[in-house]
């Protein structure tokens, strides 16, 4: 196991306050980490730190990379994308090859062929000349996966990849991710704790503090202990989530803001 990224005692935040406190986590090359936690708990901030988009207020981040720019592949939330932007699918995939040193050097036919090959592998080769606006959510998600993969990253980060896609593609995607995991580490942010826990190897619960859980099975008691207000997870033959009624008598003494996802109750 080679270490890829190591966060040591990192505190981070914005003008309006601290979002993450004393976070330490190491990502190694075989990892498949599910990042869970409530909205506003700091999941996205953690990703931005790893991507180098923001600097920590204190603590250190070490990247053990020897390749520039292409070390991490990143799948942003689809809500961040202007879907009417006039760009072709092939160009979206090519944009995964951007780097600081690129500057004047043009994208060569080798790069374009690689983009087309990736699209074909994902079963959407015929869409290469289409534009973002013409695609469905699931198709666009595949395009973004191709963009993340074109630089052959050592770490793939996915931010809420299951929004905007249908259930069938969601399952296909998780199976693809398990294939990718043989070649690269994966971090996946999700609010759908039940489904991702079926696929991931370990879980990081982020709610200002980060609690690393070295298995993919986590109980409500453990979540409560982590001060991580989320629904319980179980495993069965098919990925599913058991939803329990909120029971105040079982509240932990140190966890009074324990809340379940309202929509499921």
């Amino acid at each position, binding site marked *: 196991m080679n270490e890829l990224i190591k966060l040591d005692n990192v505190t981070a935040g914005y003008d309006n306050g601290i979002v993450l406190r004393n976070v330490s986590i190491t990502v190694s090359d075989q990892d498949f980490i599910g990042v869970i936690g409530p909205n506003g708990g700091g999941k996205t901030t953690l990703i931005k730190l790893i*991507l*180098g*988009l923001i600097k920590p207020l204190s603590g250190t981040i070490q990247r053990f990379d020897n390749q*520039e*720019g*292409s070390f*991490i592949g*990143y799948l*942003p939330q689809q809500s*961040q*994308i*202007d879907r009417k*932007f*006039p*760009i*072709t699918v092939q*160009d*979206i995939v*090519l*944009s*995964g090859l*951007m*780097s*600081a040193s*690129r*500057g*004047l050097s*043009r*994208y060569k036919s080798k790069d374009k062929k690689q983009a087309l090959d990736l699209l074909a592998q994902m079963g959407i080769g015929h869409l290469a000349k289409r*534009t973002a*606006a*013409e695609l469905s959510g699931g198709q666009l998600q595949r395009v973004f996966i191709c*963009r993340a993969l074109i630089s052959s990253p050592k770490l793939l980060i996915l931010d809420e990849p299951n929004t905007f896609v249908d259930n069938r593609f969601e399952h296909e995607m998780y199976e693809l991710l398990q294939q990718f995991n043989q070649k690269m580490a994966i971090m996946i942010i999700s609010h759908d704790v039940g489904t991702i826990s079926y696929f991931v190897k370990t879980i990081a619960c982020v709610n200002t503090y980060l609690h690393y859980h070295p298995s993919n099975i986590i109980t409500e008691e453990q979540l409560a202990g982590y001060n991580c207000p989320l629904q319980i997870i179980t495993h069965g033959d098919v990925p599913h989530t058991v939803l329990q009624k909120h029971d105040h008598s079982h509240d932990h003494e140190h966890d009074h803001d324990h809340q379940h996802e309202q929509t499921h109750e």
Partner: protein
Amino acid sequence: MTGILSYDFVAHAVEAAFLASITCGFIGAYIVARRMVFISGGITHASFGGIGLGYFMGINPIVGAAFFSILSAFGIRLVSKQTDIREDSAIGILWSFGMAVGIIFIYLTPGYAPNLMSYLFGSILTVTPTDLAFMGILAVVTTTVFLLFYRTILFISFDEEYARSHNAPVETFNYLMLTLVALVIVINIRVAGIILVISYLTIPQSTANLFVNDLKKIIILSMIISFAGSLTGLFLSYYWNIPSGATIIFVFVLIFMIARGIVYLRNLKQRKSSVINS
């Protein structure tokens, strides 16, 4: 019809229309794709302050306008990034402030400002060889930047955060493009005027966007629409003796509406045939 081309001022107007179509084709497509139309309107109007300053100091008003437009473009970006003032509010403030400064300076300038109306509404028939030289240089610069950096510009515009995560020179390019936007606006004020220059940057591009949805194609198609519309407007204004700038914009909108109508009818036909087929 070709007889009027023998007049120098008409030939200059045609050249100006051609160069305006080139610069506005590139920059307008960029503005429309990035949804920067409002900030461009702000830059345009803020530059009026520079025109007033130019009159007051006795220098070429376009030089003053270039200075004001670049400053306001950077100002809007810095203010909305560094402070809690929202971008559209910052644009509104600079937009009206520039106009106010311009009016005060022109009022303070002794004598009558003869070309004031041409800066407000444009006057493609009075462009000088100097104006054309400026427009030509800017057309060469803009074309060069887009030929060299097309994909970098495209990728940063599409997903700025992703570009940042790849260490792409996002800020450098944003300021480079903002400078080009400001310069293209100012240079084309001579053609279309402060009130109307935004039409050169948005209407042909929006028309092109009805048919194509790839930045490269929008750029090329909008240049063609822009040049054709300018020539049509120019000749109509010449024969009917009405203001050229306004006539060109009128033709642009007419082309847009016809294009929209064509797209509507085409979609209607497609829907009908798909109903019949199914």
